[in-house]
């Protein structure tokens, strides 16, 4: 892959290329944990969702949750990835107070999902393919709470044993922006599939980012891993800081130590968590308590057949069927609910007009109001109703914006607002001619100037007529009739 000029970072010794690979941990949407029947609801009382297995009582055994396995297979299919017909759970051994078993059940050598690829959407309607190296299932650990007592740490095991999918990308990203686009796209696909809610604030999705820098064309540099990013904005900041830090070290004649780092959002910097030497020897080995996962061709094919239309396919369809720009299409398909909303609005209407109204007016107003589409005061029918009034010339596009604002404010539908406020467009030729006559009569001097060749005054007359009509006159008709009248 050749370096894209626009992504390069300038240092004292020339341009540098950032190389990024992501490990995204996505919590599997499931009612119960990966190997126990305990519930997974977020925000429950500490240690209220802990089974004997999750707390690693003696003699307790894990039993695989088939729903979590199915979700991982669906995800693999959604990432255009190979579903491994045979995969194995391994134990990753290390000691920590919030890891009751003393090992995490994960998949090491033989993960459930192999190589895949996703297309990420970049600004300007560009896109890029990012390789997926693997996806594996693993258990989450519990949570250590250190700030409740000066001398003690508390442990909450609610998350202990919750199913995670670790999705490992290839080092295919070259900028913080691309990494952000990757996370967004991944999130979008997972949400379409219903396999992860993608809620980064609640920790349902978090990313470890591997950052290295190199001169374009050089071998890969030594990487540092920034752990546990749970916001796309912070992740971008962390990448930019970390790349700068590495460039400065190398340019000062130093070398990068392979290490694990944490991002301090308050200071906007990354700091060392542990070095390679301090890294654990996890002593992975196949978990003898669990049988290998073996899938038949029929099972995988059946899951494939049940997949919903995914964002890329939907985007391609919106471009082909509705004539949307790649940029608009990408925005509309990011969330399944948005795409469904759009399709309802566009049904039987001008699809481009529908897209414009959604993206500009609806999203603009929702953003301003801090609302989601799900609690929008303007639903599909109301927005469609407004577009219908524009299309049948009941109101002009400009009036429509006022109607929309009113609609957003009051929740009333467009025809009601138009009736109540008397905003119906004037399309009656006689009425418009009357307006024109009145304007021409009061502006006799300007009429004379126009007629003597000052063409530019045409816009002035249009403005005057529209003003007289309180904006309600049909602009096209005003144009046409005015031209005729002025021509005398």
């Amino acid at each position: 892959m050749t370096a894209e000029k626009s992504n390069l970072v300038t240092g004292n010794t020339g341009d540098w290329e950032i190389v990024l690979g992501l490990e995204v941990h996505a919590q599997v949407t499931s009612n119960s944990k990966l190997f126990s029947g305990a519930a997974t609801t977020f925000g429950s009382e500490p240690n209220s969702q802990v089974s004997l297995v999750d707390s690693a009582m003696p003699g307790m055994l894990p039993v695989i949750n088939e729903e979590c396995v199915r979700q991982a297979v669906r995800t693999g299919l959604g990432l255009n990835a190979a579903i491994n017909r045979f995969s194995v759970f391994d134990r990753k051994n290390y000691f920590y107070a919030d890891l009751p078993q003393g090992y995490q059940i994960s998949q090491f050598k033989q993960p459930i999902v192999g190589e895949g690829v996703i297309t990420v959407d970049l600004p300007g309607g560009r896109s890029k393919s990012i390789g997926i190296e693997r996806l594996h299932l693993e258990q989450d650990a519990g949570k250590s709470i250190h700030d409740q007592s000066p001398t003690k740490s508390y442990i909450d095991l609610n998350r202990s044993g919750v199913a995670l999918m670790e999705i490992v990308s290839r080092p295919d990203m070259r900028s913080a922006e691309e990494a952000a686009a990757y996370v967004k796209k991944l999130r979008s696909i997972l949400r379409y599939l219903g396999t992860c809610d993608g809620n980064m604030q609640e920790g349902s999705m978090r990313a470890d980012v591997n950052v290295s820098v190199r001169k374009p064309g050089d071998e890969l540099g030594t990487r540092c891993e920034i752990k546990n990013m749970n916001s796309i904005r912070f992740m971008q900041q962390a990448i930019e800081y970390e790349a700068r830090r590495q460039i400065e070290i190398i340019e000062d004649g130093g070398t990068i130590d392979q290490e694990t780092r944490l991002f301090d959002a308050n200071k906007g910097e990354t700091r060392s968590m542990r070095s390679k030497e301090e890294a654990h020897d996890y002593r992975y080995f196949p978990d003898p308590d669990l049988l290998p996962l073996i899938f038949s061709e029929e099972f995988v094919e059946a899951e494939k057949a049940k997949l919903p239309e995914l964002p890329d396919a939907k985007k391609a369809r919106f471009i082909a069927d509705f004539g949307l720009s790649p940029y608009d299409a990408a925005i509309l398909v990011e969330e399944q609910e948005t795409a469904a909303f759009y399709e309802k609005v566009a049904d039987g209407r001008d699809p481009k007009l529908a897209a414009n109204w959604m993206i500009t007016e609806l999203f603009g107003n929702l953003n301003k109001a801090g609302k989601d589409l799900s609690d929008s005061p303007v639903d599909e029918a109301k927005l469609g109703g407004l577009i219908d009034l524009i299309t049948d010339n009941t109101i002009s596009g400009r009036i429509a914006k006022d109607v929309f604002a009113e609609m957003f404010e009051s929740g009333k539908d467009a025809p009601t607002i138009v009736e109540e406020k008397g905003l119906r467009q004037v399309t009656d030729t006689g009425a418009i001619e009357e307006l024109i006559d009145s304007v021409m009569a009061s502006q006799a001097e300007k009429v004379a100037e126009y007629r003597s060749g000052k063409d530019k005054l045409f816009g002035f007359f249009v403005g005057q007529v529209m003003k007289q009509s309180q904006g309600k006159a049909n602009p096209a008709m005003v144009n046409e009739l005015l031209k005729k009248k002025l021509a005398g």
Partner: protein
Amino acid sequence: MSDLLSLSLTGARDALKAKKTSSTELTDAYIGAMEAGKSLNAFITETPDKARAMAKASDEKLAKGEGGAMEGLPIGIKDLFCTQGVLTTAASHILDGFKPEYESTVSQNLWNAGAVMLGKLNLDEFAMGSSNETSHYGPVENPWRRSGGDNAKLVPGGSSGGSAAAVAGRLAIAATGTDTGGSIRQPASLCGIVGIKPTYGRCSRWGVVAFASSLDQAGPLTRTVSDAALMLGAMAGHDPKDSTSADLAVPDFEAALTGDVRGMKIGIPKEYRVDGMPAEIDALWQKGAAMLKDAGAEIVDISLPHTKYALPTYYIIAPAEASSNLARYDGVRYGLRVDGDSLNEMYENTRAEGFGDEVKRRILIGTYVLSAGYYDAYYLKAQKVRALIQKDFNDAYQSVDAILTPTAPSAAFAIGENEDDPIKMYLNDVFTVPASLAGLPGISVPVGLSGEGLPLGLQVLGKAFDEETVLKVGGVLEQAAGFDALPGFLAGGK
């Protein structure tokens, strides 16, 4: 009273059904024996009140002609099975005060079948040992003594040493055990009783404190082969809570004891004739083969070529799994905690004090063989050898129905005799470990006495999930051997 104690499990069952005695009477007799037999140190926890209450409930059922297969029969439970509300120690200091909120599937199956719990039986710490000397609760004494009067206290074998001693010394009518590399069969042999390790997957591991998950398997220690058939039937069965539990119906094991082995082919593996094996063990083996031949079986010489690698393979795989299984004993949630200035120090203090030397040795070995740079040379290679050992058996079973071997390379040895030599101790498992690695069923049946008057057992191995053949052949051996010697503990009154 002593008559009651001499009843076998099936004999007592029949007596209860025939209302010749009651469970309360039988249980009281055993509670008395348990009291009188404290010198053996077979029990870690005795539960006489629970036993009486369970016996009473059984009597009510029996009176109505109801009850399960084990109704009213007082048994001991190896203290590796979690028992609800009853101290469960795995004979380790690190589980101090641990009372599970749950009941292991196997013990629950037994209670469902009507069995009565006398208490929790001593064992090697976390079932790691072949002599019951690694228990935090002290060694168990074998009810047998050498003839000729050196009167040394002998080990009962291990790790199910408390189980074997209790059954041989008539402190329990039968007992559960677990077998990872021979922990049921070897102590059965050393104590002159019957012990069967069923096929891996036959009994649920749920609620059994894990030692080596790919090897651990529960089974009964009993006085007779038909007792073993009865009790195994009550313990076994598919358990959805154990992913490695086999989804197979449990056969009527007692019905398999037809006494008819005519035409069966019994393999004698030449590789089990190990260097330095005592002549009397070899002689016993040949005697056993002759018994089966006399009963109409065909004796076939077979080869299990990878046998010599079984012990080193076992001592890589079992410690590897143990090192991980025992990581949960960290002082955070239950059992012993020895505080420290940091989390790591607390771990170190707790585990240093909580685990005994043998457990520490195996955790160290296991951690080593799984470490980066050593994994391929040890663990991975051991897994490959394990597959070859399994293949040896599969090949052999193309031409034979069962295999006859000695159970252990020697009779019971004195307490302390092998304590300082782990390798010598590990050699106790040389005949039992191969079948463990292959997951196959095996039974030890007492067949004769050593020159010093100590019991010696022979082992019958079978195909996967063919415990019926194992029991059938074992039953024929038992009958032919007519082993009726009693340990000095019983003969001498104490």
